[in-house]
């Protein structure tokens, strides 16, 4: 499929991607390009200055806060509109159920994964061009604390840690995309179905905010600089991924096929 056809079928995915890139680019302009020092007065370092490196600038906060919304809008509205038009019937009868399921699954996951990882990677690349790739200093204490999972990797191989964390965010986004599509398949009002994942995340965010460290809020878990405090957080994230697959296969596809 050429680019024109892709854009036409995935209009809202493109809009979400552009929004994500705008947020991360504006972070780069304000927080990196026009700021010689970081907010704590520390000389620039790519691993700290990029959007996943801290909450120094509002764009960091907003990007991770609206991440579930960017993902659900990017897949939910396009999917909902085409489902309402019975367009997927045309696809299904031209292949087997198994092939349809694999293609649809791969597509939904990839769209969710890419709509988040592209803006993050874009911001990191821009920051790398402006700031040195110095190894993070554990004494400065901006980064995962020693008791946090991945802290050793962050200080010994920060590039690998950062890449892995961007992928982790992408996988989480893929899971949110699965949940969105499953909801769109079973809820008639696709706009409502698209908004639901964000509403759920917002409720979790609010509940998480009631606790002192609010480690369980997505904003914190998904930010590379903070990492996870305990294995439980990764287990919670993994269970979200597994649940999304089950929801998509059990509810979404069952309804569709």
């Amino acid at each position, binding site marked *: *499929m050429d680019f*024109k*056809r892709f*854009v*036409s*079928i995935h*209009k809202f995915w493109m809009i979400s991607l552009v929004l994500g890139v705008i947020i991360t680019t504006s972070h780069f302009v304000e927080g990196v390009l026009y700021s010689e020092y970081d907010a704590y007065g520390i000389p620039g370092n790519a691993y700290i200055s990029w959007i996943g490196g801290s909450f120094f600038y509002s764009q960091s906060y907003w990007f991770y806060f609206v991440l579930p919304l960017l993902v659900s809008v990017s897949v939910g509205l396009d999917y909902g509109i*085409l489902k*309402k*038009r*019975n*367009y997927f*019937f*045309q*696809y*299904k*009868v*031209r*292949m*087997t*159920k*198994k092939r349809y399921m694999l293609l649809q699954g791969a597509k939904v996951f990839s769209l969710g994964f890419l709509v988040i990882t592209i803006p993050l990677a874009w911001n990191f690349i821009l920051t790398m061009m402006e700031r040195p790739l110095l190894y993070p200093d554990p004494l400065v204490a901006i980064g995962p604390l020693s008791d946090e999972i991945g802290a050793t990797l962050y200080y010994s191989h920060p590039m690998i840690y950062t890449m892995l964390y961007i992928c982790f965010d992408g996988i989480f986004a893929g899971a949110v995309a699965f949940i969105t599509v499953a909801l769109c398949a079973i809820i008639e009002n696709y706009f409502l179905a698209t908004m639901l994942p964000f509403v759920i995340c917002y409720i979790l965010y609010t509940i998480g905010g009631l606790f002192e460290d609010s480690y369980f809020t997505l904003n914190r878990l998904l930010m590379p600089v903070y990492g996870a405090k305990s294995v439980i957080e990764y287990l919670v994230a993994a269970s979200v991924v597994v649940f999304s697959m089950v929801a998509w296969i059990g509810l979404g596809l069952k309804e569709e096929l």
Partner: protein
Amino acid sequence: MKIEVQNISKIINKNVILDDISVDFISGKIYGIKGRNGSGKTVFLKSLCGLTRLTAGQILMDGKRLGKDMDFPESVGFLIEYPGFPGGLNAFDNLKVLASIKQRISDDEIQSAISRVGLEQDAKKKYRQYSLGMKQKLGIAAAIMEKPELLLLDEPMNGLDDDAVMKFKKILQEEKERGALIIIVSHDLEELEMLSDELYQMKEGRLEKK
């Protein structure tokens, strides 16, 4: 091609949509199914496509059981409910996306399907700019472009003007001569009597020959 529908039923939320239907269809014929809104016509067409799960019964296509030996009919074109395509693509691009799944037909054959339904003059317009009749024409083009053995059409003349109706009737005859098995569903008895070789009536989920 032979389709054997054997005692199929479909119940949704305790409502009987299809009630113990048994009927045979063979290639080279046009079958008309008349029924008022909500009589189960569309669900019946969807079940022939494999797009809905049956509560009871089975459908055999050349001896193969639909939903067990095959997920969907091997060669089917359909227009069910209203045709829907991505709004930002023109007629050719929309058909090209679908044709690229099976990769059985060339670009010339896609163009030919567009011409047959009389959409060639509007082929460059985007789908969102189409009138109801033009959307219907594109739906018909999508159904016939791959020369399917089974052609299922739900209210195919909705929104078509007189000229388009004439073209559609010509297409039906050509498809019939080619050997396709055609099933048309409509609430308009006069229209069906004119087009069909055999006529059926769908009433409260039951199919009766007229």
